[in-house]
């Protein structure tokens, strides 16, 4: 099936939030902190502005608790006289003319009496820098398996390494934006978001309103990648506060520079590995420490850290594993959800470390991975026994075959010996990604989904899972049509409007197709049951039964319902971090061929192969596009995406100096899928969305190391970084 809303998007007919024209609408903007930490002593309003024309909102205008509802409630919606990061929202302004409000924001001066900020998450804070608990540790998590110290003491080889990753900006092409307005006493907020019910909860909490007085509608969302998981609650609250005070509709649309400066990014990471191995390179012990920079508030850092440490040991079998992870407070703009959610950071470290081990022990990097890959019956670091029957070695082998790995290695030897200025190398990464919420997260969510019959015999899928480009509308249509024997045109997907759709959970964690898609199937089955039809009933039989039902039940609605149930045999202990961290994992190998120009130190990916086992591919074009797009994000993170910080805020907050890959920076991404249906996923599908971001960075950097003989330990490997490695004759980073 072709992308359902594809033609509307290609023709420019899809209406995103900033495309909505609203009569009498004001433009809102945010006045932000200039300082990383301190008490606000004064707010000065410039004399060149007639302030009586403006609507002004500060923390005193907040009807409920001044808290953004999330894991912890430590983040205020508007700074209450104290700021913890640059760009923290302090005041809100609105005016009928956008140019006027832009000018006015520049005329407000926030004066802060500075206090010592924490600007490096790797450094132990001083006493005057403590702002959370006794040590600025936002979250501390550990995984323990076996006896690491004993195994290390006995190991013939021990290899250590430190690996670091930088922040990454989402660069969804549509910036953050919300529209808020009152209809009688119902406050409606519509805009760009991944999680309508998160926004609803945040609004009811801060505004002290009952849920029936707040309505949240997702508008077509121009990319999210996690950047529209938690952050839209902030924008929605601000738009709502202005609309309530003005008693008029307010649009709050960030421009690119504000979006880059003020919104979340991928957590920077520091990962230390100490690995014990036998003489052949078999893993005997993995001792791993993980630090991530959380920024100024807790936000989602605890769950990012959780996924980071669970993926830190890689898709390998090892009897002795100890992983210690900490999310640290700094006075940086808070870091947040980004596709992969911690797993890309720790798997960069793990897969780069595998190549460092191979180099140290003089074993083949492919062979090292092959002998350690987890096999059915073996357990992950949390003790989750893998028994899915996936041919993990086959995944790796197919990637190597497609990339002509052995031939390329031989060719590169000759090429590098003879070419005056170019060096080529090939590298791989073998990795996995757990789909759905971690541990008991899906149980806690209790997602509910409805499939409604309509009086004309069509059906409508009602869910809070949204389309942001990844294909929800198409996949849900396919699943319902397939389950009911319907023409896809007779399946309607409801707008994600919290006044109509049940809470099927957030659109995150690669869960939409696998977990919520399964609810679509089960709700279709429930619809048939309610109609008194046999499970085999299809097409016209169902349609006619729906039409007949409405003849007998006027003023009622026919609803098929499904609620998430945890599959049998899954158990997780949140306290000890032991058990089944995820219902299932998807498995993949990426291979990158890279060319480095010794004159410019720029690295170019010549070829890229991505092979993954994802249960079942639901739509070939969409799945391939997800992988290709994820890989290119990963290549950008590895080579060019460089967030430069000053006082904890991004200073290169323009697309002129924060570079993401263009079509000319990347080769065709060659994709192959292996299928081993997962019995509890929709149609056998496993989560796919985040998996492709885990592999590119280590594969590309391993290829750069092979090409140049250097040993990069951090990303992005910009030309400047590579120049330092090569010219200073200090092949090792850091």
């Amino acid at each position, binding site marked *: 099936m072709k992308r359902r809303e594809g033609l*509307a998007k*290609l*023709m420019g007919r899809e209406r995103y939030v900033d495309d909505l*024209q609203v009569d009498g609408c004001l433009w809102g903007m945010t006045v932000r902190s200039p300082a990383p930490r301190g008490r606000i002593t004064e707010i000065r309003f410039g004399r060149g502005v007639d302030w009586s024309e403006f609507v002004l909102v500060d923390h005193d205008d907040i009807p409920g608790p001044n808290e953004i509802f999330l894991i912890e409630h430590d983040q205020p919606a508007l700074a209450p006289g104290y700021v913890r990061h640059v760009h923290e929202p302090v005041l809100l302004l609105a005016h009928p003319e956008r140019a*006027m409000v832009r000018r006015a924001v520049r005329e407000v001066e926030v004066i802060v009496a500075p206090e010592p900020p924490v600007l490096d998450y790797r450094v132990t804070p001083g006493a005057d820098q403590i702002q959370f608990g006794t040590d600025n540790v936002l979250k501390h998590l550990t995984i323990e398996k076996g006896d690491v110290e004993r195994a290390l003491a006995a190991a013939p080889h021990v290899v250590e390494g430190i690996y670091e990753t930088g922040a990454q900006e989402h660069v969804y*092409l549509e*910036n953050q934006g919300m529209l808020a307005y009152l209809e009688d006493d119902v406050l409606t907020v519509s805009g760009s978001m991944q999680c309508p019910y998160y926004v609803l909860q945040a609004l009811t909490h801060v505004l002290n309103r009952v849920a029936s007085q707040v309505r949240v509608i997702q508008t077509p969302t121009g990319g999210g990648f996690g950047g529209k998981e938690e952050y839209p609650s902030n924008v929605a609250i601000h738009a709502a506060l202005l609309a309530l005070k003005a008693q008029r509709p307010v649009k709050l649309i960030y421009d690119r520079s504000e979006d880059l400066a003020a919104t979340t990014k991928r957590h920077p990471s520091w990962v230390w590995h100490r690995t014990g191995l036998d003489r052949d390179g078999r893993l005997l012990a993995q001792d791993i420490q993980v630090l991530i920079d959380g920024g100024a508030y807790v936000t989602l850092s605890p769950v990012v850290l959780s996924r980071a440490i669970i993926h830190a040991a890689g898709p390998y079998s090892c009897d002795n594993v100890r992983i210690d992870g900490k999310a640290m407070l700094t006075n940086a703009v808070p870091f947040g959800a980004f596709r992969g959610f911690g797993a890309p950071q720790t798997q960069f470290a793990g897969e780069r470390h595998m190549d460092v081990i191979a180099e140290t022990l003089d074993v083949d990097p492919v062979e090292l991975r092959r002998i350690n890959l987890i096999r059915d019956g073996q357990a992950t670091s949390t003790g989750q026994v893998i028994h899915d029957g996936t041919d993990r070695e086959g995944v790796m082998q197919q990637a190597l075959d497609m990339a002509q790995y052995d031939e390329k290695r031989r060719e590169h030897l000759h090429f590098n010996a003879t070419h005056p200025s170019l060096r080529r190398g090939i590298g791989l990464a073998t990795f996995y990604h757990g789909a759905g919420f971690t541990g008991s997260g899906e149980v806690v969510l209790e997602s509910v989904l409805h499939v409604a019959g309509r009086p004309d015999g069509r059906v409508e899928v009602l869910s809070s899972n949204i389309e942001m480009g990844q294909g929800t509308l198409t996949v849900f249509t396919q699943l319902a049509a397939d389950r009911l024997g319907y023409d896809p045109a007779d399946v309607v997907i409801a707008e994600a409007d919290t006044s109509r759709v049940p809470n099927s959970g957030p659109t995150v964690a690669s869960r939409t197709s696998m977990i919520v898609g399964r609810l679509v199937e089960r709700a279709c089955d429930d619809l048939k049951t309610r109609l008194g039809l046999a499970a085999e009933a299809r097409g016209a039989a169902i349609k006619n039964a729906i039409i007949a039902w409405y003849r007998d039940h006027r003023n009622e609605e026919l609803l098929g319902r499904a609620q998430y149930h945890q599959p049998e045999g899954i158990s997780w202990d949140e306290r000890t971090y032991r058990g089944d961290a995820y219902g299932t994992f998807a498995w993949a190998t990426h291979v990158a061929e890279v060319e480095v120009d010794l004159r410019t130190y720029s690295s170019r990916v010549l070829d890229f192969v991505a092979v993954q086992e994802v249960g079942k591919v639901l739509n070939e074009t969409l799945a391939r596009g997800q992988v290709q797009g994820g890989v290119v994000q990963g290549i950008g993170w590895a080579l060019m995406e460089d967030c430069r910080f000053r006082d904890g805020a991004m200073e290169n907050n323009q697309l002129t100096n924060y570079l993401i890959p263009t079509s000319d920076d990347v080769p065709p991404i060659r994709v192959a899928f292996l299928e081993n249906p997962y019995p509890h996923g929709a149609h056998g599908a496993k989560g796919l969305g985040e998996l492709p971001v885990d592999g590119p960075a280590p594969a590309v950097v391993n290829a750069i190391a092979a090409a140049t003989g250097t040993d990069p330990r951090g990303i992005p490997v910009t030309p400047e970084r590579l120049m330092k490695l090569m010219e200073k004759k200090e092949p090792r980073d850091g």
Partner: protein
Amino acid sequence: MSSNIPITFELNGEDVTLEVSPTERLLDLLRYRLDLTGTKEGCGEGECGACTVYLDGLPVNSCLVPAYQIRGSRVDTIESVDSEDVDPLLRSGATQCGACTPGVVMTALWIREHPGLLQTHTIRELMAGNLCRCTGYDGIVEGVEEMLLRRDRAS
């Protein structure tokens, strides 16, 4: 704000006369005053190409064009595109979130109409002014290739 510069220009084949302010961008004029919201703002500084329109037949970033400069010119936007022309892009997976897509379509169609460029440039080079964060570009490049093939078959 004063809107005091009278201009007349041709927009998607029709004459338009109105007054613009000195600071108004072509992008703002299209989106907020003429309700032609198919043209998107991605960066506002000419880096991303989401706001691509044709000015006198050439693709430009409408965020970088002061509205008063289009006096007497011809402007064509995504709203002038025929749905049959984008079918190859729909089939190849050239659109995901859709925010870059109208700009991508404008550049893609321009390449199709100027195939001689492919003697000196690759499709990837010609598309490099349109950032896309979703597709990784393969769906776009394959769609343009198919557009060119269809054009050859038709001629």
